[in-house]
């Protein structure tokens, strides 16, 4: 029983960062209709940005986090401006292939710059875990959970309570009408891609110190993000958040009770199972995001 | 005279919306029948049900005695019921000639054969030659021989419709469903099409068409079936339909009062 509770707590913590990954992708995929194969690379960049800031430049851990997120934001904006805008109007498969190309460049660039050896990010928290009843949780992971929940809440606020969020929701439902209503759809797309990318970077920056940082880490993360988007429904932020926790739970329980080697397969098995039963995803395309 | 097509108490609901309520009529072999009604009356929905693109919530459609319930579109075409499409009527990136070649797909079919096997085994050459000859004949018949090697997507709207007709005729149908064949055409194009429809009937193909162009419908049809709010409100030869009070009200009673009254009736019946 204690073991189960420990798994649940672990899943809760992991789920928070997965939710960030998923929300970022569902916004991009939902609003811009782009199959974003750079999402994993942004996750990796976020982790390496943390590494650079803390380990190489000696920046304070809590300052490095917003720096990493900002880096993801800027990189996302750059990708949208340089690569997606010129291809606006192309088929969705052309755009997807462009994203694959960009993802390759980013991942190889990371490998080239930092080398293939995994790096560790020093954490400012005490090593000894906190004991809450039968469950032991490290301070670092508690911080990760708190930061993730804060970012999710901020994203919600952005989408539901700001003018930018209103414009994004309009563009999600009907970009032509939104444009006719005075929304600069091109700027919304840049903002959306930047926002989604910053969330991926945040997820990487938060999980980097928990595990280790290596150039290929984005690959699996990206596919898990797709699983979460399919679980939660395209453009459905709430669905993505819930989906993130469900995936984390499936992974934790699968690793704990079935086999740890197949842990990463959980996401893929979920994708296959869900799409076989409900070919349009678990929830229908959301009526509105948020 | 037996009915070649029987629409038997067909109903279509989309959630709470009733698109078609109890549609019931027959088409007899050799007729030209028109299906008319105001916008949103359910005409294209009816076509989609008849050709297997939509499953009816109730009722059945019988073609030459065979029930079409649950059959996929390609199977219905195999039975001899073909259709044209209102908007996307061609394969845009292929030439007109290749369009018709695609349409002649059924010519090389032997039921149950694995697709492609003939090609792999090199037995296809004679069938290819026959298909090409037939494609030429079809193009000649609809009058598009001059355009044979142009891209279908680049053709004028009216000519694309002719390609659509050629495609449907390529399947050697016993009956042809034409979905708004002259919409967007001018008077002379429409005349050409009316002549074409009569020639199709002379070839032995029964025609059911959906249209909005009243003069054209009155001129070409043997019988007219009138739909409104998914219901059949009148049926008969053009002269009778022209003076039918229910039809007149359906078309002229566009004011909100009339619509509300009809909607109230609808809510009671649905």
């Amino acid at each position: 029983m204690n073991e189960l509770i420990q798994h649940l707590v672990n899943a809760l913590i992991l789920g928070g960062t997965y939710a960030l990954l998923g929300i970022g992708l569902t916004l991009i995929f939902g609003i811009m209709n782009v199959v974003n194969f750079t999402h994993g690379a942004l996750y990796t960049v976020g982790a390496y940005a943390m590494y650079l800031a803390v380990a190489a430049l000696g920046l304070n851990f809590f300052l490095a986090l917003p720096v990493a997120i900002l880096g993801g934001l800027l990189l996302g904006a750059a990708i949208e401006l340089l690569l997606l805008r010129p291809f606006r109007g192309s088929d969705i498969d052309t755009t997807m292939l462009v994203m694959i190309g960009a993802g390759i460049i980013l991942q190889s660039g990371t490998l080239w710059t930092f080398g293939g050896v995994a790096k560790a990010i020093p954490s400012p928290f005490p090593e000894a875990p906190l004991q809450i009843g039968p469950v032991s949780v490290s301070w670092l992971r508690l911080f990760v959970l708190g930061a993730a929940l804060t970012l999710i809440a901020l994203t919600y606020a952005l989408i539901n309570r700001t003018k930018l969020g209103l414009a994004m929701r309009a563009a999600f439902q009907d970009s032509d009408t939104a444009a006719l209503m005075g929304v600069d759809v091109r700027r919304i797309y840049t903002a959306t891609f930047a926002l989604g990318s910053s969330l991926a970077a945040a997820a990487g920056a938060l999980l980097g110190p928990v595990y280790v940082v290596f150039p290929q880490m984005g690959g699996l993360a990206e596919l898990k993000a797709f699983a979460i988007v399919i679980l939660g429904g395209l453009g459905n932020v709430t669905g993505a958040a819930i989906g993130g926790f469900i995936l984390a739970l499936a992974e934790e329980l699968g690793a704990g009770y079935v086999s740890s080697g197949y842990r990463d397969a959980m996401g893929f098995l979920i994708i296959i199972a869900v799409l076989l039963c409900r070919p349009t995803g678990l929830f229908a395309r959301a009526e509105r995001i948020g | 005279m037996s009915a070649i097509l029987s629409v038997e108490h067909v109903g279509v609901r989309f959630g709470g919306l009733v698109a078609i309520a109890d549609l019931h009529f027959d088409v007899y072999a050799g007729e030209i029948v028109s299906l008319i009604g105001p916008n949103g009356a359910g005409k294209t929905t009816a076509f989609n049900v008849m050709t297997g693109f939509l499953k009816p919530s109730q009722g059945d459609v019988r073609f030459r005695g065979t029930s079409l319930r649950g059959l996929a579109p390609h199977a219905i075409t195999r039975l001899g019921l073909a259709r044209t499409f209102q908007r996307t009527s061609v394969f845009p990136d292929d030439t007109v000639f290749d369009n018709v070649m695609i349409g002649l797909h059924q010519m090389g079919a032997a039921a149950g054969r694995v697709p492609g096997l003939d090609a792999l085994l090199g037995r296809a050459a004679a069938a290819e030659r026959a298909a090409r000859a037939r494609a030429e004949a079809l193009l000649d018949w609809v009058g598009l021989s001059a355009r044979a090697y142009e891209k279908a997507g680049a053709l004028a709207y009216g000519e694309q419709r002719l390609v659509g007709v050629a495609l449907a005729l390529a399947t050697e149908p016993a009956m042809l469903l034409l979905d708004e064949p002259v919409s967007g055409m001018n008077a002379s194009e429409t005349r050409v099409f009316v002549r074409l429809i009569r020639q199709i009937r002379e070839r032995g193909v029964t025609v059911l068409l959906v249209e909005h162009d009243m003069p054209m419908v009155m001129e070409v049809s043997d019988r007219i079936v009138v739909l409104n709010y998914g219901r059949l409100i009148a049926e008969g030869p053009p002269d009778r339909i022209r003076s039918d009070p229910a039809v007149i009200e359906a078309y002229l009673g566009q004011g909100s009062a009339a619509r509300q009254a009809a909607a109230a009736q609808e809510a009671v019946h649905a």
Partner: protein
Amino acid sequence: MNRLLPLALLAGLVALPLGLGTNPYLLNALIVTGILTIGAMSLNLLLGFTGQLSLGHIAFFGIGAYVSALTSLGFDVDLGFGIRAVHVPWPAAVGLLLATVAAGGCGYLIGRLSFRVRGAYFVIVTISFAEVVRLVALNWVELTQGPLALTNIPAITLGLPGLGMWTLKTKLQNYYLVLAVGTLCYGVIARLVGGRFGRAMRGLKENEPLALSVGINATRTLTVAAVISAAMAGAAGSLYAHYLRIIDPDVFLFATTVSMVIMVVAGGKGTLMGPVVGGLIFGLLPVALRPVMAPEAQWIVYGLVLIVILFVMPRGIVPGLAALLGRRPAPAAPVLEVNPAVQR
């Protein structure tokens, strides 16, 4: 003109070793390039001709490799419930056959799946399928040796007992074997695409409702294409296994699918020569670049090349060149629907 070019290329490839000498380094590059090109041609059948974007293609390749290797090595595994599966080694040529069949079977499943799941979701499902297969290969150590790899895979042997056996061990022999299989695959695809079946695929890609209404059976057409595509990829995987004589789960890496996709898209999807041209360029480019740049830098170059080609010649090199030279480029149409959540 269209017939001449492939024949000329074939003649050139046949004569190549005789002209350039049997440099083992070059031959190795050509063999691996050839195998990947067969993979690219098979992917093109699905991606280019039917418009089904399957990004899990490497799964068929890898399954073919493992099936062929395990057939020729034999295995002895415990399936649980007290059942042991034991297999004695069979000739490698039989492995090639079984690999083709097994991969084709998986292709059948994917083909059926593509009707339930559409557009971008189909892409994601196929990637997931490939990843699951990779993880199985990695973790089912008893069968596959996991990361320790299957080694000492025998080379393919041709001939009949009594008439003389011919083991294809040297690079030169493997080169001609790959060339022969590749030519056969090209011929099969050309035959398929040129006639009624090819027209059916094109019709479905350009206007599916219209295609259905002229009597084209979408399910059957796409499934047959998927089976043939997968079977060819499986054959390529088998050739790979018996040439390298060692196979590990890295054969399932997404990166190899990406290589094949680049070959098809850059070469020209939906054309016959496209994947061949793309395959030769992107198969031999690493060889040319290796003395000059590190592999990571090469991948950056591929990413850039892919993006540039998509921008400048979105239909690919072969149609682009054909347009430049005044000939009509091959038709290409959108692969995915605009809204993946809308089901047909």
